């Protein structure tokens, strides 16, 4: 039961990741691309937690957490770059 | 008191950090609480120059209420938006900009409000006005912008005003 659910969710998020990639490649503006990257990061976090759930291990938690933290930084950096040019000013 | 203020520049933050540490350690024990507390004192001390004027939370029950309201709204809005995305044709949607005049003045409060708006699917807070007295919000599908604005002011801003000011 739970295994099926996990695999279903895997499939959903897997598809989500690929859609994000598709968006990154095909989008017409950088903003959308960054958005798609951000979404991809979030989906990845979900995937990692799921995988930890599947294996019953907590070893992936830190990675998920760090990604959650750092994904933000990189998205902000891209956005700042597009808005101001300087990331740090 | 002054000394206490200098050692604990940020009691709320200290508590938050201690909780974060215990969560991180993921095994509640005396060790982790003590250690978290030490770090929770040290880190605000280090970072206090970056947070010069600190807000004071006045109404704790309201904080809890606010969180519950927001969580509920998130769940509801998720379903609404999922329906829009999956089943509504793009042409039928009516995306809209909404300007919300703010009564809040504290940056922290404004941030919480804007964050709430963004986290409830369907609305995204997009910008502040040049002096920070209005919030620009984008709605995914809002046939009636004014209603959305009023709801936001009613549901969230009112509560936040009580919490922060």
């Amino acid at each position, binding site marked *: 039961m739970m295994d099926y659910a996990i695999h279903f969710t895997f499939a959903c998020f*897997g598809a989500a990741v690929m859609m994000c990639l598709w968006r990154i490649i095909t989008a017409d503006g950088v903003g959308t691309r960054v958005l798609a990257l951000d979404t*991809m990061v979030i989906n990845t976090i979900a995937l990692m937690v799921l995988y930890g759930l599947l294996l019953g291990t907590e070893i992936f938690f830190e990675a998920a957490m760090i990604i959650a933290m750092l994904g933000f930084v990189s998205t902000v950096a891209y956005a*700042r770059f597009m808005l101001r040019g300087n990331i740090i*000013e | 008191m002054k000394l206490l203020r200098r050692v604990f520049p940020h009691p709320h933050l200290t508590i938050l950090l201690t909780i974060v540490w215990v969560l991180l350690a993921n095994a509640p024990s005396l060790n982790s609480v003590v250690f978290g507390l030490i770090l*929770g004192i040290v880190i605000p001390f280090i970072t206090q120059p970056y947070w010069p004027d600190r807000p004071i939370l006045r109404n704790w029950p309201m904080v809890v209420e606010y969180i519950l309201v927001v969580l509920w709204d998130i769940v509801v809005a998720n379903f609404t938006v999922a329906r829009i995305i999956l089943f509504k044709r793009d042409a039928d949607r009516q995306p809209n900009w909404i300007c919300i005049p703010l009564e809040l003045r504290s940056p922290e409060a404004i941030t919480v409000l804007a964050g709430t708006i963004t986290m409830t699917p369907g609305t995204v807070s997009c910008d502040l006005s040049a002096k920070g007295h209005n919030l620009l919000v984008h709605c995914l599908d809002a046939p009636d912008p004014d209603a959305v604005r009023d709801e936001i002011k009613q549901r969230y801003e009112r509560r936040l005003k009580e919490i922060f000011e």
Partner: protein
Amino acid sequence: MSLFLIAALPFLGAIFPGLLIRAGRNVSASAAGLASFLAFTGLMIHAPAVLRGEVVTARFDWLPGLGLNANFMLDGLGFLFATLILGIGMLIVLYARFYLSRHDPMGQFYTYLLLFQGAMVGIVLSDNILLLLVFWELTSLSSFLLIGYWKHLPAGRQGARMALAVTGSGGLAMIAGMLILGHIVGSYDLSVILQNKEAIQASPWYLPALLLILLGCFTKSAQFPFHFWLPHAMAAPTPVSAYLHSATMVKAGIFLMARMWPVLAGTPEWFYIVATTGLVTMVVGAVIALFKDDLKALLAFSTVSHLGLITMLLGFGTKVAAVAAMFHIVNHATFKAALFMSAGIVDHETGTRDIKRLGGLRHLMPVTFGIATIAALSMAGIPPLNGFLSKEMMLEEAFHTTWLDSHVVIPALAVFAALFSAAYSFRYISHVFLGPERQDYPHAPHDPGPGLWLSPAILVLLVVVIGLNSATVAGPVVSASAQSVIGGELPYFKLKLWHGFTPALYMSIVAVLGGLLLLAMHRHLERVWDNLPRPEAKAIFDAIIELLTQISRTITDGLHNGVISRYAAIMIAFTVGIGYYAYATGTTGLPTRVPLEAPIIPIIGWICLVGATLAIMWFHRNRLLSLVLIGVVGLIVSMAFNYLSAPDLALTQISVEVVTMILLLLSLNFMPTQTPVDSTKARKLRDAAISVVAGLGAGGLIYALMVRDFAFPTISGYHLANSYKGGGGTNVVNVILVDFRGFDTFGEIIVLGIAALVIFALAESVLSSNVRAYLLNRKPHWPQSGDAHPLMMVVVTRVMMPIALMVGAYIFFRGHNQPGGGFIAGLVVAIAFLMQYMASGYTWTIERQRFYYHATIGWGVLIAAATGLGAWFNDMPFLTSDFGYLHWPPLEEFEWATAMLFDTGVFLAVLGAVLLALDSLSRFAWQPGIQQEYPMDINPQRDAPPVPGPGPDTIIPVGKET
């Protein structure tokens, strides 16, 4: 006196003239003269023994491993040459003192001269052919300096380079020849080599060795076709010409042929190569000399001719010829040096050496006239002068020699050369000194003081004395030297004026009469000569060198054209090729591992990775997009690490990823955001081909590796087993990093620290150049938005940063036992500070910064090193770790480990390095006007209570409240 000292004296003496020149020209010259004189005296001490036929030796093992030993020997041959070198050397020192003008750096001159003298003495005294080579090349070098002494004359520079190139290359060939010779014999000692004639001549390597050695000799002795450098060396001051280019250096080749005569001569190869070359040189030199108008050029070609003569004699391979050669060496040295000096005097006094502008000097310069005439007559072979004697002997030998079954060729050509020889000698006398006096000499000529004419006078005296009394004066030396050339019994010979009516006498008479006839016809012949098409050696040489230079330039510039992509392509192609070769020449077994299954998620990851990578290739012109895609790749790689049981790697990868991306964004801010098209289709195809091949190589290699097990148990088994026991940590990767292989990590943080330092230094140097002005006036890529530091960002950062620091601390403390560690913690903390930078701006943040990045890096490295050094006090090697457990009630026990301290060093170094790098880059964008007062641009609280709305035109400036 020891031979070492004799050989060393000129070198020692060379030091002084240069140093003493401040004390005056006379002192300098005296020092040089004294050195020569002492050496000469030392030589003379050995004279009796040598003339008795004894060989004086001195040995010193210099480089026994190679066989290069400082062994010297003095036999007759060496004695003859050494006497010439040192004796004439002293005369030249005297002559030069008065010859050189006030403006010439005389100290330098004597230094060079003595260096040369030492080298020559070294050649003739060497008993080791490698040592001989050393001195041989030294003569080339010192003559280079001497020829180029007058730096302001282009002819001097070119002549010097030409001489160096020709004689130097000959010397190089000789190196090979000598090495072969030494190999055949098994020793490089001359005395040993000279005993091994049979072995050498029987060896298959005889001919190559002979050719190579002769190449050296011929170039040095200006034999045809290498003769052309000698006339151009005449750009040197006359003392140099007299010394090097008549008496000594050019005879080095002759010397060596004589030296090697016992082992190399006597074969048909020797005869045909050496004798023919000598013959041709003799003829060619003599003919050309007649038509030269420059006095020194005339003498130079005559020298070429006479050197050819001696070479020919040696080439004959008969003992008598060898004796004649020795005798002619002496005679030529005397009269030619005297002639050069007299030419120098003429030049010095009249201001020209052009024969066409001279004539009639006999009354104006009687002394010079006398000297020059006697010397020239000797050169022409007029009895009773010494030149006559040796020429007779040469003609005699030539008469008896057959060449390719022909009895005529050699005698005829010898007479022909002698005829021209007489002619140019007579021309030297008549066209310079005889004839009517002229009015248009550049200077008013008169005889110089004795300082100048004394030296040639002494030589001329010798010319006469030897001629009249050859047996007693020159006899012993000639016999002794001939003895050492020939080796065994001396043949019967007599040095005397009258041998009776021999064929040689008739030939001589023909030569002299013919010479007079030629002189008479000179004007007509000259016209013919001038119209004769003939190759100009210098032009050819210059053209060759120029061609060589051009080719070199083309090759060099063509090969190293600064196109890095080509360099890289070559390297990659080469690597793949060699790698494939290595693979193909080995054997590989079947797979021994069962591959892991590939569920759907890794496949999706793979698709994303490959898709993103291909998209990067496709869209790489759009730099921002490529960066975003690189981010995707990094994310997936990090995920893959996680998936494949490497949580530490995943953490590191993702953190590094973010920092790298920010660095790239920071720099992209100043760079174009688009890459223009500058590759052709063909080029892209080529690049694509190379990359595909390389990709296949890398992928194939790792696949081949992964499907097979390790051939041996890996060393990491030990790490797994000892990580907890010996290192006190359960995260084996971390224990390896901070303990088992802590030294790697030590190096790694140093790399990072250096990187930051480099970046800082570079930023400093860029910002202190004129780039600063450009940066200040730079326009952004696109219009900037308002609100540089949005309120929400600032507020969120205020919460996020402490939390991020907390996470950093957590990652750090758990690292030893769980994924994490100082490195990742450093990155996380750095990113936390970075958030603050991004939120509130550089100026605002830096004002509140409480620590210095340089110091942080320094502390990090120092702490890490100190942790390592701490082990010394335990008498343990660097970086030996220790750990234990602490228990403070009521807390539970916790672990301490010195590795944690080391990790702290890592943490600090990483933190400092990342922040210093980011900080340096941020300074590029910093404008002097920006002084931020507030952390956020918009803060309604600041304006409270709200005033009724200001006009719609209100402008909010960046980072500054109105």
